[in-house]
């Protein structure tokens, strides 16, 4: 059965309205303030650290993102913590909020499809995050310039920009998850808790659990243990399990993009090291290639989550 008209009727209208709502909402302002403070704090700390230790690094600028000094963690750590929270904060009440305000049936009785409403909300969330992250990114680069006074090279800017895009994709995963739970759960509080719970599970518990599970399934070989090495089977399984978590994927991508000397994510076999100059930086394209499966994995995850939400939403009754 073919439907009449375009599924994207009204998409732009919904998106602009949601975007305006997001940008003027108090929760967005609060999140933005927190992120700004972290940006300033970590860049300042990183500057001190860089001044103290690193002198001969061709990718000095990227150190702003990765350098930490106890007790303060690095900028990417804060970002990997805050981006999901920001995304979930924007999405957790997007559909059930409409339902609870009883605006859903009124809006859907206008000549638009549900597709437009859902996709508009997702795009608006993504754009909001893009604006926030872009501001942050420029802030870090600007502060970096200010503190150390050396302009970044073209490759550094390119890498930092890829990092920005990847962070946005990562945010998209949590945005799609928040949107899905806002469709499934009628109560906004339940949706927020469920999404945050799942995020914490993947961020904190799953990496530990992946190690434990892989040790149970493939027990470490005593011969490797005697040599002080990890059993390859166990490591491979652990890595496979850990990569089921978007947080792990994001972490790996960040390592590959922001550290040009990264040659592989995961165990390295001797054959891979033949002819390699250890510690030599890779070109940006090669770094992206290393992280490409992870990037595709993140994009696919957000698409799958969005599609599940879409299907559930299409079948949902709108009556109050």
């Amino acid at each position, binding site marked *: *059965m073919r*439907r*009449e*008209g375009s599924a994207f*009727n*009204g998409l732009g*209208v*919904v998106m602009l*309205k949601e975007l305006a*709502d997001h940008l003027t909402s108090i929760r967005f302002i609060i999140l933005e303030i927190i992120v700004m403070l972290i940006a300033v704090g970590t860049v300042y700390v990183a500057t001190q650290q860089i001044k103290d230790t690193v002198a001969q690094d061709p990718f000095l600028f990227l150190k702003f993102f990765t350098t930490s000094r106890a007790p303060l963690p690095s900028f990417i750590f804060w970002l990997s913590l805050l981006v999901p929270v920001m995304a979930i904060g924007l999405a957790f009440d997007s559909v059930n909020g409409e339902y609870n*305000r*009883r*605006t859903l*049936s*009124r*809006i*859907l*009785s*206008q*000549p*638009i*499809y549900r597709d437009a409403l859902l996709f508009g909300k997702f795009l608006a969330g993504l754009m909001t995050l893009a604006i926030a992250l872009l501001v942050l990114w420029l802030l870090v680069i600007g502060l970096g310039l200010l503190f150390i006074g050396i302009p970044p090279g073209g490759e550094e800017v390119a890498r930092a920009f890829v990092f920005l895009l990847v962070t946005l994709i990562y945010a998209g995963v949590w945005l799609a998850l928040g949107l899905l739970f806002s469709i499934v759960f009628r109560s906004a509080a339940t949706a927020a808790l469920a999404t945050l719970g799942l995020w914490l599970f993947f961020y904190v518990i799953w990496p530990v659990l992946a190690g434990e599970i892989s040790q149970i399934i493939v027990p470490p070989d005593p011969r490797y243990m005697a040599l002080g090495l990890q059993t390859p089977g166990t490591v491979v399984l652990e890595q496979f399990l850990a990569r089921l978590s978007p947080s792990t994927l994001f972490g790996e991508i960040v390592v590959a993009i922001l550290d040009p000397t990264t040659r592989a994510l995961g165990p390295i076999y001797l054959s891979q090291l033949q002819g390699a100059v250890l510690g030599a930086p890779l070109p940006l394209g090669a770094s992206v290639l290393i992280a490409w499966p992870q990037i595709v994995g993140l994009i696919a995850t957000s698409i799958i989550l969005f599609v599940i939400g879409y299907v559930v939403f299409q079948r949902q*009754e*709108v*009556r*109050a």
Partner: protein
Amino acid sequence: MSGDIVIEAKGLTKTYGQAVAVDHISFTVGRGEIFGLLGPNGAGKTTTILMLLGLTDISGGQVSVLGFNPAREPLSVKRRVGYLPDTVGFYDQLTAADNLRYTARLIGFRLAEREKRIGEALDRVGLSEFAEHRVGTFSRGMRQRLGLAEILMKGAQIAILDEPTSGLDPHATAELLTIIRRFKTEGVSVLLSSHLLERVQSVCDRVALFSAGRIALMGSVSDLGREVLGSGYVVDIEAEGSGLGERLALVPGVNRVEQTGIGKLRLHADRDVRPEAAAEVVAQHGRLKFLGVQEPSLEAIYTHYFAARPDGTLKEGARHAA
């Protein structure tokens, strides 16, 4: 009612798994007609409305709204039909005008037309001075009126109102009913649902009484009254004069005369006997003080109908138990 039909439902059915929410209902609504869907909560009124708008799937039967099939051409239907949901909601942080602007943009009106339509619509429901107030500060009656303004702004040919008066105080109800009556004068058909029988009785041209997913009765209120209550017309007279009761009993069509008080008589008749009764009183040199015919009340019709058909109520009870 003109012969022009805007909504036509034939054997419309909605099932949720085993449960039947709407069971083979058929009705038509003409242009400029006010049609009431009446019945208790859970009788299938809202489900019927959502099927008309294409907001829920149709399990069986056919429905045509302005010649369109809501399941296949929902956008064409929704462009021409205005809907006021049960307890309508607006974005509280936006102003009344901004809420309408969002809807107008969704419909696709251009800027100049948008502002003109919004201004006119708010004016007609008496909210123009609140146009720039946030909806969060609005009372329930104002929200309902804003909902009607949205339908007016849309220029809808059919207005579907789900429980428009529930939870409103008498004054707000009266205001709302006035606006609804005005729809009719502009040729807009109105389909409204309610469980408050006597409130909507005054505005509806025809009503359909719902019970357990079926239409139990359909027709104009007075027709239904005669059909269900049987006894025809009840005329109350207040007059001074001697032997009026005996004389009035002889008026053709009067079945019975009842003394309801000093100088007060009640005539039970087959038809409207007011002219004959008045002539009779005057002929007897009586002093006529009051003459009125009792309209059958929907409440009475409803209670009477379901009391007379215990199978209907039993079925409903069984459905609730299941």
